[in-house]
């Protein structure tokens, strides 16, 4: 017998792909340069950090990691991981419920209030 899937579940590999997401990565390029492999450690390759950042969401290795991450989110196991990344209690709670939409909404709220608190971000 198959356990019915919760209607709150989403496929994160679907969410984190496509042109819209790639545009966001491009616009926020600086946020990701230290989160990809260090291409300078492969001096023979002609690739650049920019290319690596922009290519990441299409890489099978990344997509596999997203698959695991999404599985953990849907099964309510992502809370501790998000806590390590300093996410708010509400975000962690929603993720621990396995509620992908609730997680997305509370993360959006958190980012909104963070933007208000730091109006001069990057200005100083």
């Amino acid at each position, binding site marked *: 017998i198959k356990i019915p*899937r919760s*209607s*709150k*579940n*989403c*496929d*994160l590999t*679907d*969410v*984190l792909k496509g042109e*819209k*997401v790639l545009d*966001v*990565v491009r*616009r*926020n390029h600086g*946020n*990701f340069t230290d*989160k*990809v*492999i*260090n*291409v300078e*450690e*492969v001096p*023979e*390759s*002609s*690739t650049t950090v920019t290319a690596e950042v922009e290519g*990441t*969401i299409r*890489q099978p*290795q*990344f997509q*596999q*990691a*997203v*698959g*695991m*991450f999404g*599985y*953990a989110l849907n099964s309510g*196991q*992502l809370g*501790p*991981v*998000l806590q390590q*990344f300093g996410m708010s209690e509400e975000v962690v709670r929603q993720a621990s419920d396995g509620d*992908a*939409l609730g997680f*997305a*909404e509370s*993360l*959006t709220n*958190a*980012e*909104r209030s*963070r*933007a208000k608190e730091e109006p001069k971000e990057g200005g100083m």
Partner: protein
Amino acid sequence: MDEGQWCLIESDPGVFTDLIRNFGVTGVQIEELYSLDDEACSHLKPIHGLIFLFKWRAGDEPMGQPAKDTDQIYFAQQVITNACATQAIINLLFNVNHEDVKLGQILSDFKSFTKDFTPADRGLVLGNSEQIRTVHNSYGRTQLYEVLQPPPTKDDDIYHFVAYVPIKGKVYELDGMRESPLEVGVITDGQEWMDVVRPVINQRIAKFSQGEIHFNLLAMVKDRKMKLQEQLEILGDAADPTEIAHLHEELNAEHEKDARQKLENKRRRHNYIPFIVELLRVLAKEELLVPLVKESIEKRRVEEIAKKQIKTEMKME
């Protein structure tokens, strides 16, 4: 990952090549073969052996007969799960007797230490070799958080690697799951060993395709850069310039492939979680996360309904 465990390794020529280089082996590399036809693999010669990967099934009929002259074959039985990639490499490499091929310290030590052991004992020693295991495990997919591991599905594919290798005029199949090596053919005068192994593997593949079983075929070949450089030296300066240009082109292609495989191996080991978390954050900041998640939930719902409809239609038919 528990101490003493061996992780699964992706059957990819880049991973295998890097794995054997990190064991300290020189003079060989691993290439994927898409066909066993002579034209398709002649440029890779000498081919020292083949590693055939397939989905394992219990009760697979052996193709060949138990080898008689086992004292001239190095064969280790598989005692530990998931080590079969390294197991197949070792069973293959230890039977290669070629001036180009140097095993390096780690494997030479292992080979001489286990020389007089039974196949089962060799497997046990391999399972307990920390040095070999450490290199092997550095190619496993990063398992950062235990919780992120989806449970294995019921037919979680059990892939298995076996080696085919020519030894003193005969071709053997070395499968760590069997009791002993299998002799699959005799190399007659004027024949190359690949001619002997080709029908054996093709027959095996034919059996698989009926059941749509996945397989792939890797070849342990002479280090390509080494081979091309030797060819250039032999030709000398007096040779046909187009031929020299062609060899340089091939050499460049090998260097590029090396770099590409190194990048891919780095990505395999990379921790993408910080990237994913940051991506979710910026998507949230730009008010895109909620609509994207809603879209995915809706898509899944529609797919579920479609699946149910197909099932009902099938029942009605």
